[in-house]
């Protein structure tokens, strides 16, 4: 590894925190989904960094990262489909305007 492990972990921590801030603060559902993608990316970077520097079998981290990638794709697909359905019914994409359990 060219740069120390801790630096990468700090980087991914900051990335994760940024994503979390977005999830907590954004009103737009699509914005929240985007922030979730950021968090998933941070997790992926961690996986890669660990698999590259610790003694587990080297491909494990990458395989898990690929699983995360696939899950992220499904999240995006289903989440955005829900957003579109919501928009069609309620004409809004803002979380605090969707306060009914049923419509």
């Amino acid at each position, binding site marked *: 590894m060219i*740069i120390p492990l801790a630096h990468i972990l700090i980087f991914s921590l900051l990335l994760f925190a940024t994503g979390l801030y977005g999830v907590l603060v954004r009103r*737009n559902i699509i914005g929240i989904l985007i922030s979730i993608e950021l968090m998933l*990316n941070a997790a992926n970077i961690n996986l890669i960094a660990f698999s590259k520097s610790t003694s587990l079998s080297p491909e494990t981290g990458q395989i898990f990262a690929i699983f995360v990638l696939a899950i*992220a794709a499904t999240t995006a697909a*289903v989440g955005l489909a829900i957003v579109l359905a919501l928009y069609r019914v309620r004409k809004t994409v803002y979380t605090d305007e969707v306060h009914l359990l049923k419509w």
Partner: protein
Amino acid sequence: MDMLSLIIKFGIYGTMALALIAAIAVVTLRNLFHSALCLAAVLIATAMIYAAFHADFLAAAQILLYVGAVMTLIIFAIMLTEQLGSKTIRQTNRQNLAALAGLLVFVVILGRVIFKTPWPVTEKALASKVTVMELGKAFMGPYVFPFEVISIILIAALLGAVVIAKKDR
């Protein structure tokens, strides 16, 4: 070749800085389309970091899946839902200061943990280089069950997305 590794090192740090700036832009920009584009920048920067860690396949898959497909989906959704002239709508809720404070504490604590922990870095792992073929064999060998489960999840998500997004007759 010492100079070369130095340049690569600075390249990685620069990429990280770029990714962080873009990530901050993603969560703070008012225009959602701009923040989606910044997300694309973050994703590409992340792919470059993967490539620097010799995870070539993952880097390419990241670009193909995220930048090629997921980003397109997100932008599509933004185009379908965003009103073009929505400048006055408040984009953040009222908990942003509280969230910022909480996250600061979170980052400080985790940062201390990261620096305090003695990570078991081994030379063997550092020297390892995973080829695509090894990855494929791992998928078809020990990880075949999760692989199949993932494929089922993908199909379920595909069908689910179609069913949810379809117009009611």
